């Protein structure tokens, strides 16, 4: 382009008269001006996929990739040493973290008030959950724009996304409890922060999401258009995924005290006393480039992640004098470690590699949820059947014949403790629901059991116009 112009100029300079030069020159100048104004300066972000593309001109591939992203988003902070399993485990006295470089795993998590300003501790387990909820909202909004999906496929994606949203919101309220949480999550960034609403409203919102998801999944056709990880084996079609959705609903029902509803939900879930207790849906981890490792795997003889000695101490013996199968499988002995007057000689053998899976929810919890619902409804016999099923099948223990309405709740909580040990903060959440946090053992008399995480400081500041 330049060469042509130069050429024209040298001709110009040699022969043309001045009168003819001026108009030509102004045409040239005009051409430049036009070029300058019309040339498109839009340059995309070469290094990252753009959010704008996903929201305004999504493609089938992009939408599927975003749907798959929800799995990565919801997996964040699950396998980390200051993540959901680890921190809730510490609060519920399932585990310790003796990280030498950060004493707050003891001073703050066990001994003091949770600090809303410490992003790795008290203010933790909030931001990334809401980030994944935003991921799901972006995905859901993109469905209105995208071409190339059948209606059934769109419904399948909606059902999946809302189920994951409900799960993330459940994890938020599990940590914040009566402090409440934010449920109006699809606001523009320049809007005022959404209000923080009470725990009941949050649970209502979770149920709403799960039920909407169920409706979408029912219209979701025979398969998902996107890929699911191997952790969803057996639950990877809209119909089977719906059993996972109902399983989560059952957990929420129980947490809300809606025990009859829980039994209905469980009926539509994958609860099956004839199946493996580990049947369920899992977070998967890997060592490949870009994948995430499960850092709860800590095989050292002087590990950071330790087991609280109370579970092993409380475990019953089997008929042959051996310890409960669950403890034998999940806890290993190590040379006793002490940090800041806290001592343990136990570590976990639950996560046996950096690729070890962490359950979302599994059959054993569903059976225990049915037992809990029946306890709540006063159906002691039905509840005792399930409790004894778990005692014998999972623990190798003898069935208890002395269960009555007076002692069945404690037995249920004990079985939940041992069956779901260090899998997602069940001990802390369950004990809190029944007002029994004070029964948790304190390693040092001055320690306390924190009941809930505070609302993070950044969240509070945003509401003060800061």
């Amino acid at each position, binding site marked *: 382009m330049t060469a042509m112009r*130069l050429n024209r100029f*040298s001709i110009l300079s040699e022969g043309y008269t001045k009168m003819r030069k001026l108009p030509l020159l102004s045409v040239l100048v005009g051409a430049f001006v036009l070029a300058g*104004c019309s040339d498109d300066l839009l340059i995309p972000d070469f290094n990252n996929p753009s*959010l704008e593309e996903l929201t305004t001109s999504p493609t089938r591939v992009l939408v599927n990739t975003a749907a798959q992203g929800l799995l*990565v*988003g919801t997996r964040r902070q699950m396998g980390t040493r200051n993540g959901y399993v680890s921190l809730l485990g510490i609060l519920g006295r399932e585990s310790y973290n003796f990280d030498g470089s950060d004493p707050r795993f003891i001073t703050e998590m066990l001994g003091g008030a949770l600090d809303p300003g410490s992003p790795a501790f008290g203010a933790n387990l909030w931001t990334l959950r809401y*980030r994944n909820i935003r991921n799901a909202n972006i995905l859901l909004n993109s469905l209105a724009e995208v071409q190339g999906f059948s209606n059934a496929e769109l419904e399948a994606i909606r059902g999946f996304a809302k189920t994951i949203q409900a799960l993330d919101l459940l994890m938020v309220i599990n940590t914040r409890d009566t402090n409440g949480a934010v449920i109006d999550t699809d606001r523009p960034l320049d809007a005022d922060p959404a209000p923080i609403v009470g725990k009941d409203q949050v649970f209502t919102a979770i149920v709403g999401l799960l039920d909407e998801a169920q409706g979408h999944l029912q219209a979701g056709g025979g398969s998902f258009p996107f890929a699911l990880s191997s952790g969803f084996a057996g639950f990877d079609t809209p119909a089977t995924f719906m059993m996972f959705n109902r399983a989560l609903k059952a957990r929420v029902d129980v947490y809300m005290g809606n025990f009859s509803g829980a039994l209905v939900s469980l009926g539509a879930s994958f609860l099956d006393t004839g199946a493996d207790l580990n049947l369920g849906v899992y977070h998967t981890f890997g060592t490949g480039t870009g*994948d995430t490792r499960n850092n709860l795997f800590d095989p050292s003889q002087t590990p950071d992640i330790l087991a609280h000695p109370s579970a092993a101490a409380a475990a019953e013996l089997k008929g042959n004098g051996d310890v409960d199968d669950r403890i034998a499988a999940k806890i290993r002995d190590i040379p006793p470690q002490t940090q800041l007057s806290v001592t343990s000689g136990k570590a976990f053998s639950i996560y046996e590699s950096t690729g070890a899976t962490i359950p979302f929810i599994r059959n054993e919890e569903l059976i225990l949820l049915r037992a809990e619902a029946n306890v709540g409804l006063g159906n002691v016999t039905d509840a005792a059947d399930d409790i004894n099923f778990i005692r014998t099948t999972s623990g190798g223990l003898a069935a208890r014949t002395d269960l009555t309405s007076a002692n069945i709740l404690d037995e249920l909580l004990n079985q939940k403790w041992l069956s779901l040990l260090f899998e997602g903060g069940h001990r802390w959440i369950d004990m809190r629901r029944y007002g029994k946090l004070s029964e948790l053992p304190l390693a040092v008399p001055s320690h306390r059991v924190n009941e809930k995480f505070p609302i993070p400081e*950044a969240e509070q500041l945003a*509401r003060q116009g800061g």
Partner: protein
Amino acid sequence: MRRRLFSLCLLLLAGMALPADAQQREIRGRVVSSPEQFELPGALVSVVGTQIGAVSGQNGVFLLSAPSGEVRIRVTMLGYKTGEVVVSPQQDNVTISLETDVLNIEGVVVTGRATQIARRNLAVAIATVTVDEMTRAPSETLEKAIQGKVPGALIETNSGAPGGGMQVRLRGTSTINAGSQPLYVVDGVIASNVAIPSNQNAISLASGGSNPSLTQDAQVNRISDLNPNDIEKIEILKGAAASAIYGSAAANGVIIITTKQGRPGKTRFELTQRAGFFSISNKLGSRSFESVEEAVSAFGEGARAVFTPGVAFDQEELLAGRNDLSTETIFSLSGGTDRTRFFVSGLWKNDEGIIANTGFEKQSVRVNLQQRIGDRATLTFNTNLMHTLAERGLTNNDNAGVSYYMVFPFTPNFVNLSQRADGTFPTNPFERSNPLQTAALLKNQEDVWRMIGSTDLNIDVLKSRTQSLQFRLTAGLDFFSQENEIFSPPELQFEPNDGLVGTSLLSRSDNLNININANLVHSYTPTSGSYTAITSGGMQYEDSDLNVSRITSQNLIAGQPNVNAGTVIGVNEFRQRVRNVGFYIQEELLMLDERLMLSGGIRTDRSSTVGNSSDFFYYPKASVSYRFPDVGSGIDELKLRAAWGQAGNQPLFGQKFTALTGTNNIEGIPTIIVQGTAGDPGLKPERQEEIEAGIDVSLFDGKASLEVTGFQKNITELLLQRTLAPSSGFTTQIFNGGELRVRGLEVAVGATPINTGRLSWVSRATLYFDRSEILSLPVPSFRTGGFGTSLGSFQIEEGASATQIVTNLGLNPDGSQIVGRVGNANPDFKVSWGNDVQFGNFTLYGLWDWQQGGTIINLTKLLFDFGQNYVDHEKVVDAFDVGDGTMISGTMGEQRLGRWFNGDSRGYMDDATYLKLRELSVSYKFPPSVITSLLGNAVDGLTATLSGRNLLTFTGYDGLDPEVSNFGNQAIARNVDVAPFPPSRSFWFSLNVSF
């Protein structure tokens, strides 16, 4: 917008009257230098009060068509004072001699994209550095060549590593988060000055693996590729008042580089051969141990077997004590006819570093060709091919125990680390690596091939007595390809530490800048000659595309460096592309006998980096100057000037986007998820408004000059980060807001106290200081840079200086930490003083550079204190009272560290004051008779020079060098000293022959 500009151009064209000159006469003349009477081709000759002009050609001869009657002819040329003669109506032949402009107070200076003006009328303080000032002592890079020569420019090396890595900051801090480097324009082409990290971080783990920006890699900013010897002059537009015409890329100032062109006449060949060496100029030293008990107490039981009384090694000398021969060959060939001119140059430079396997090589070939086409057009081709190879060793911060000066603090002087007779190195029992082994075996190379080329077409569309119209089109490109290769072989002591033996890192970066500029310049002087109006306008298109890809390969058990030889391989790619389009229009008015100069202009541009790339942003400017000639009482001339302008600083590439992350997967299933930082679709450039005012005085018949300039810059719409409610899914968002103010003063003084035929003395001095203040900050005060308050950090807060350093100042009675201001990265003031003394054929030249104040975060000292290995651990002093009665006893080093452990880090915040002898040279110009007898008639010049750079440093700073930046070029966070490359001085002998 389009329509407005278009019609403006039409108006401009329509308004031109065609020439209708009556009587004319020819004046033939000659331009020569005084007193030597050398012919001066290439001088601009003009008839005062008209638009008639010419350029002197071969033998300095020019031909002018002048009006009849008496005329005044003016001749200007770079490096010479302006000459004027009156030519009577009868006279048709004239000789004009020009005096050398030693104080550089005359000549023409750039005022826009395509316009220039005589320096005496200039209304802004634009500094000009000419080739003579730059090449008196050899310099590796352009920035080194102008260090200490420009008031208002703070030019500092980031470490002593060979091959560049220097920061140029013009008039203080102009931004917090946006780019901090000036815009470099070489012959009309924007030259890339990007600094691409080498990826040594993959070995040093300096960023802990969490900071992908890798700014601790001792990276080199690419302007170092240029050959300083090719440059005719550098013009420095320091702030918005001068640089507004460069719009949204100009807030950090603009450095305009003009390369040499041939001159008509005899072909000149010039050859300079240099030989010299580098030598370490400062060492930290280390603690000496009297007894095995002392050694054991500092270094543990392991020291017992190693310690031998009386045996001590100077580890620094063993590492950095090399003085290998360095060479530099420079040649140039220039000349031409009145129609064709050429300048051809070459450079071959090989600097050997003071550490094994370090050094800097540079080769450069330049061909500049100028061809006149017809009598109205000139076509210029400038091409420059460059190659640089920098080997910079392994320095700066690390977390793996591999950087030389990170290892020395923990390595006592009694351990022998030297290579054994069988070629192997002993294992360092006190740290994870043996620096002598690392230096000998680790390869860290940065290999750059670069091409800068421009084509410039200049057409005199109209030329008459009263007006001229010039069209100028420049198209150019700057392309470079940079390859960084780091190979850390398996036999290195530290290599097994991560379980993956041997590391090979390969990074490849390509950058292409394309520029097209079109300009029209119309000049008009009425027949009365009462004023001259210069109207210029034009359009610019700029495109810049950078692509960086990296491969990290580990576990190279066989020792083969190919990246596919490893078993653990990581790849990464980063791209950025920026496109800008701009327009400007500018009017300059010279009137009242050329005493009053009025100028105004406006630039508008749009850029792909701003939120809405079709939005235009406007940058106006205006200036005025007035000369008072012949004031009397020794004052030849006095000029008052004032200028105002605005310029922008574009957002960084990607800041406007709300990006998704596409690099995570789950079991290989690809995913995208949102990132925590939200972009702003309405992002704008930062806006700088600058006012400057000054006074220029020429004294005692041109024997002395004084320039004083005060300025104030207000930068608004700063690119800041705000914290969002995390429940939105995002944590931070980039936005425009806040205000930063910088005020400062620049003084330049020049004098020729002695100027007899045989002896002359020229002296120049500069003084500069600036102060910044954050006037408003719409986000809570925040820290940036550094490693946290206990190790010194930079705090951005309303009402405080932008570059203030805060650190731990002790504990409150309740045990909580007190954090407060302890210093400033910005110096109190800078002074430079250069002197040329010529006596007969001898010339002595020296340049002093003095920085007063400024604070350095000296973490190298902290490391030595940690290791109990600093010389201060020998100094016994009184116990120190922390304040609450707690006494800290022990040696000076122990007390400093003890206070640090007690929450008081002030012992590591050191004063950066220094005085350096930057340049020194003595040269002897052989007399013609000697040359003839030695080399015959062909040679007409022979000069021998002894020179040196950074020969002397006086400083109270107890680190290696008070010029230091672990994080490379930084808007705020400079002056962090973590295990830098040690500084060196260089000595050179040169011979220059010309014929």
